[in-house]
C-alpha cells in the first residue's frame, strides 16, 4: 500500500517537473547577462532592454495580435453558427458529413493544412485574380479555418448541455427565435464563446507552420520571427521574449479560468 502510493506520488512529482523545469530554466537564463546563453555570468535585464528596442519584433508582435484578434472573432462567429447548424441537422448523413468537415482541420497535420491553403490561394489568385498578394489577409483566412473548428467543438459541447426547455420557455413567453437567441441562448453560451475565442486567439498567436506557407512578402508574424531566429540556435533576446510570452499566457489563462469558475459556481448556486 505505502510503496504503491510513494511510487504514484513520485511519478506525479516527476511529471510536473518534466512539464515545468524546461520553462523555468528558460526564464532563469533570460536574466543571464552573458551573450553565450548557457554560460551564466550574472543577473541582468539587459536582453529585455534590447528586446524593447527591437523594432522588427515590435512590428511582428503587432501584426500577430491583429491577425489573432481578427481570426479569433470570425472563428467564434462561424463556430457558433456551425454549432447551431449541427444541432438543427436532422438526417444522420448531413450531420455526419458536416461534422467530418468541421473536425478535419483538427486532425490534419499543420504542414498539410498550410500546403493545401497555399495551393488554394495560388489557384484562386490565378483564376479569379484574388487574393493578388499573400500576406496578413491570407494568414487570417487560414487561421479562421482551424480556429473555427476548435470553436465549433467548444461551443457545441456547451450547447448540447443546455436545457432545451429554456428556449421553449422563451418561445412560450412570446420571444421570436432571434429574440430567444439574443436573450436566452447567447447569454448562456457566453462562457463557452469566451473560452473558444481565447483558444482561437492563442492558436493563431502560436502558429508557425501554416503561416510559413500562406504568408507573403512583408507579412512576418511573431512566431515566424522567433522560428527563423531559433533555427539558427539559442538567442538571449528570444529567451527574454519567450519568458514574457509564457508569463503573459499563464496570467491570461489563470484569470480566465478563475472568471469562468466563478460564473459556473454562481450558476450552480442558482440551482
Amino acid at each position: 500500500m505505502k510503496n504503491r502510493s510513494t511510487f504514484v506520488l513520485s511519478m506525479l512529482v516527476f511529471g510536473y517537473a518534466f512539464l515545468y523545469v524546461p520553462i523555468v530554466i528558460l526564464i532563469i537564463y533570460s536574466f543571464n547577462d552573458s551573450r553565450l546563453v548557457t554560460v551564466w555570468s550574472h543577473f541582468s535585464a539587459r536582453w529585455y532592454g534590447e528586446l524593447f528596442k527591437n523594432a522588427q519584433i515590435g512590428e511582428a508582435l503587432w501584426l500577430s495580435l491583429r491577425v489573432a484578434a481578427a481570426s479569433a472573432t470570425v472563428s467564434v462567429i462561424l463556430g457558433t453558427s456551425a454549432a447551431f447548424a449541427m444541432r438543427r441537422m436532422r438526417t444522420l448523413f448531413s450531420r455526419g458529413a458536416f461534422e467530418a468537415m468541421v473536425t478535419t482541420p483538427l486532425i490534419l497535420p499543420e504542414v498539410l493544412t498550410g500546403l493545401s491553403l497555399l495551393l488554394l490561394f495560388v489557384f484562386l489568385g490565378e483564376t479569379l485574380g484574388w487574393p493578388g498578394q499573400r500576406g496578413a489577409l491570407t494568414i487570417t483566412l487560414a487561421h479562421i479555418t482551424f480556429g473555427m473548428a476548435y470553436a465549433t467543438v467548444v461551443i457545441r459541447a456547451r450547447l448540447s448541455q443546455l436545457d432545451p426547455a429554456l428556449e421553449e420557455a422563451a418561445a412560450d413567453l412570446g420571444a421570436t427565435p432571434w429574440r430567444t437567441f439574443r436573450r436566452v441562448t447567447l447569454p448562456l453560451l457566453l462562457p463557452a464563446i469566451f473560452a473558444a475565442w481565447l483558444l482561437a486567439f492563442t492558436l493563431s498567436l502560436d502558429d508557425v507552420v501554416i503561416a510559413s506557407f500562406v504568408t507573403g512578402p512583408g507579412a512576418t508574424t511573431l512566431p515566424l520571427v522567433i522560428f527563423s531566429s531559433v533555427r539558427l540556435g539559442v538567442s538571449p533576446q528570444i529567451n527574454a521574449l519567450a519568458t514574457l510570452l509564457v508569463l503573459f499566457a499563464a496570467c491570461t489563462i489563470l484569470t480566465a479560468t478563475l472568471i469562468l469558475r466563478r460564473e459556473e459556481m454562481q450558476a450552480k448556486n442558482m440551482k
Partner: protein
Amino acid sequence: MSGRPGHSCSGVFVAGVPLVWLLLFVLLPLLIVFAISLAETRTGSPPYTPLFTWEAGFLPRIHVQASNYALLLSDRLYIDAFLSSLRIAATSSFIALLIAYPMAYAIARARESVRTPLLMLVILPFWTSFLIRVYAWTGILNSNGFINNVLLDFGLIKAPLPLLHTEFAVHLGIVYSYLPFMVLPIFAVLEKLDWTYLEAAADLGARPLKAFLRVTLPLSLPGIFAGVLLVFIPALGEFIVPELLGGPDTLMVGRVLWTEFFSNRDWPLASALAIGLLVLVLVPAIVFFRLMRKEEAA
C-alpha cells in the same frame, strides 16, 4: 410535426456560411492538393504543369500521371520518412503513456480540492506557445546547454554528450509537447471510475497490484486508447520538433514535405507526400472518432 417553426430563412444563413467556408477552405484545398499531386514539376510560376490544356477548341486534354506516387513508393528516402514517422510517433506515444498514466491516476485519486489545481497545471503548458516550449529544450540539450554543463561541472562526463539534434531529442520533444493530451483522457476515465470495483476486487481476494491489473487497467482502456491516438496523430505529421531538435538524419514526413516544397520547390511531389500523410493520419483519426462515438453512446 415537420420541422420546428421559424427556421426557414435564418436557418439557411446560419448553416450556409460555415458550410460554404468549410467547402472553400477545407474540402477544395484538399482536392487541389490531390490534383497537383498528379501533375509534373516544372520551372516557372506556378511550378507545376497544368492538368488541362485546351486543344483545338472545346475538348480539354487531361494531363494526369502518377509518377510522384511511384517515386514515393520506390525511393528509399520517402519510404524511410514514412516508416520513421510511424516509429517515432508510436514510441513517443508509448513513453508519454508511461509518464501520463501514473500522473492521471494520482490526480484522479487526489482530494477534490487539489484535483482542480493539479489538472490546471497539466493544461497550462498547452496554452503557452508550442514553439517556445520546444525551443526551451534546445537550451537544455545543447552541447553547451544546461544538462551538459551540469554533468561537466560535476565531473561525470569529460566531453559534452550529443543530446540535441538526435532522435532521442525528437522523442523527448514530442512527449513533452503532447503529454497533456495523454493525461486528460486517462484522467477523465479514472475520475469516473467507481472505486467500489477495487473494493470488490480486494474483497474477492485480489492484492492491490492484481486488482489494478485486473480491474483498473482494463476499465481505463478507453482513456488509454484516446490518449495514445491524441499523441500519435499530431506526432505523425510533426514538423517543428524534428526541425528544431532532430538531427539532419532524422527523417519525418512533415519535414521531408517542407524540404520538397520550400527548398526543392517540387510542389507536385510535396502534394503527393501530403496525400500520403493524409492517408496515414486518417486511419488512426477514424479509429479515434469511432471510439468517441462509442463512449458517447455508452
